[in-house]
């Protein structure tokens, strides 16, 4: 198992949390966490691992900080 600091941004916080340390199997990838938290995929826009842009297929390691942000579209 590994511990991941998960930070949610914007509407993802509603009914969930702002920031939490969560435990996942050591082979978990970003999409496993997105599934686990039941985040709407079509609103998910930006994934950051330790502050760097990443993708849903990326793997994580113990102690990583994962931020999940909605899509950015202004105007």
């Amino acid at each position, binding site marked *: 198992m590994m511990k991941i600091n998960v930070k949610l941004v914007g509407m993802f*916080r509603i009914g969930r949390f702002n920031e939490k340390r969560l435990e996942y199997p050591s082979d978990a990838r970003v999409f496993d966490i997105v599934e686990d938290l039941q985040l709407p995929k079509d609103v998910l826009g930006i994934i950051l691992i330790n502050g760097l842009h990443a993708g849903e297929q990326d793997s994580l390691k113990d102690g990583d900080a994962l931020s999940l942000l*909605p899509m950015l579209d202004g*105007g």
Partner: protein
Amino acid sequence: MRFLTTDPAAESSNILYKRCTIDLRTVEQRMEETPCRNLEDVLGGFGRSFQDLARRQINNAYCDENPLIVNTGLLTGSSAMTGMRTYFSGYSPIKGSKAGLPAAMWSTGSGKFGAKFKWTGLDELIFENRSEQPVYVVIKETDAGPQVELKPAERLLGLSTHDKIMALQKDYPDAHFAAIGQAGENWQNNFMGAVALSTENQLKEKEDKCRFAGRGGMGSLMGYKNILALVAQSSDKLKPLSEAVKKVNLNVVKGGGSARIQPISRGGGGGTWAAYDVLQEFHAVPVNNFRPQGNAIPEKLFRENVEKEYDIKSQACYRCGITCHNNISEKNADGSKGEFLAKFDYEPLNLLGTNIGIHDAGQAARLIQLSDNYGMDAISLGATISYALSYNERHPQKTFLNGATFGDYEKIHELIIQAGEGKLPEIGQGSMRLSQSLNETCYAYHVKGLEIPAYQPETNPGYAWAIAGGHMSMGTYGLLTREGKSDLDSWVKGITEDKLHIVGFDMIGLCKFFDIAKGIGTQMVVDCLKSEFDLDVSIDNIRAAVRRSFLRGLALELRQGYTKAEFCLPAEVFENPNQNIKLPNITSPEFIEKLEKRVWEIFEPELEGLLNA
């Protein structure tokens, strides 16, 4: 429009659009069916108007030869979702080259005016010269085709955008409206006048819920011509929804294209306001004249904090399932909705909120409402005010105007009123002229004379090639922040290929939220054109027409005296790099130099001959 072919790319001249040209001085008018020159003409919007503007050499926006072109896009008034757009084009009073020549510009907004205009049977209205007396213009559907009439408008003088619309609604209850505010009436001292477009919600609820064609001072040009409002009077003419368009519309609403813009209650991101939360993660929300401080101050205007005290309601333009408007009202003691204040879209909220040191939602809402009522472009107004506040902060012993500084609500309020009433040309004429007059240009946040929207220039070198404002005409504002792209190849490709396609929405009559990532060169648009007009057009042909239109805009900029050195970001970005923004640095002088070289190498050969079409 009249379609005598099914192939708009190869036989564009067999598609005719209905154009009315009015000479405001002589009141003569010419109604004609005009054959399209190319696919850009068929698609409409700026794709058509820029070809006409290119035929005129205009040296001063406020001259009789500068036309105001009002038109729609091919899908305006159709059953395709978001098909509500109206376009206003002309040479801009505010955007101009250092050589002193005005740039060609367009501006666009939703609301229902565009659809009503189209349903009168007219596709384009060109105003030549100027009227001696203030007038409003009625465009109406008759059995004999569209008719256009000028009417005396003295009684509308001095009214706000909303009040003009309310006054006209009494006489034309079945119509929709486009109106300027006092800012446009005071065009001599206010170059950032916007055109307000009425919405169904506004007309029903009598609350000032207009949409705006704000950019580039098209409302000031309308004011110069002495046109205070346009009235489009027609019955609603929506075709029954075909299976094909129904599928497209469903895809727009449910297929992910617009999901992040939909209301939170429907599982969406909650409109453009959501950009606050996202950008704050990178400390890239503009604060105090585009200088993010690396702190939590922007969070005060996060939705989760605002909704504790205010009522927020999602609303939409006529028939639009995207529902992108966030309308803010006071909350009564019992929790019910109180007085309507303003709509919170990301750009006005930031530029008349956090970026001028206003962190109270109620105050920001009042300033947005003021800007809307006077009919000013919230982006140009906010960025010019933030420049003035920054100047005063830098010169505490020698402040100018009323000495306002960041966060000084009362004084900022006063500046907006004075600018709206045409008593403050320093603000009303925009940040380029103001900064030049004060001889401190490096922290004036405009590009090519047009104030930038609420995305830090450090995150968007693509601003330099935007032709009508950085969020309307160059979709690179999310390339670093959203997509994490910081390499040169991605930026060259973004600017010269993918991201310029955002301008397609300013041709065809749809909002960019229809499919912001892909533009209009998509199967969805192809299907709509087939279903609505029996047109067969390929994705490649649409993309080629959009690209030509964009490049024509660049060619026009160069013809209007812009040097390549003017295609640049505000100097402060380089002179005093902001260390608080938590994103890779893509605005070092070396990066920019290489980017410029490669972008021009691609664009320049394609500009040849585009203005002679």
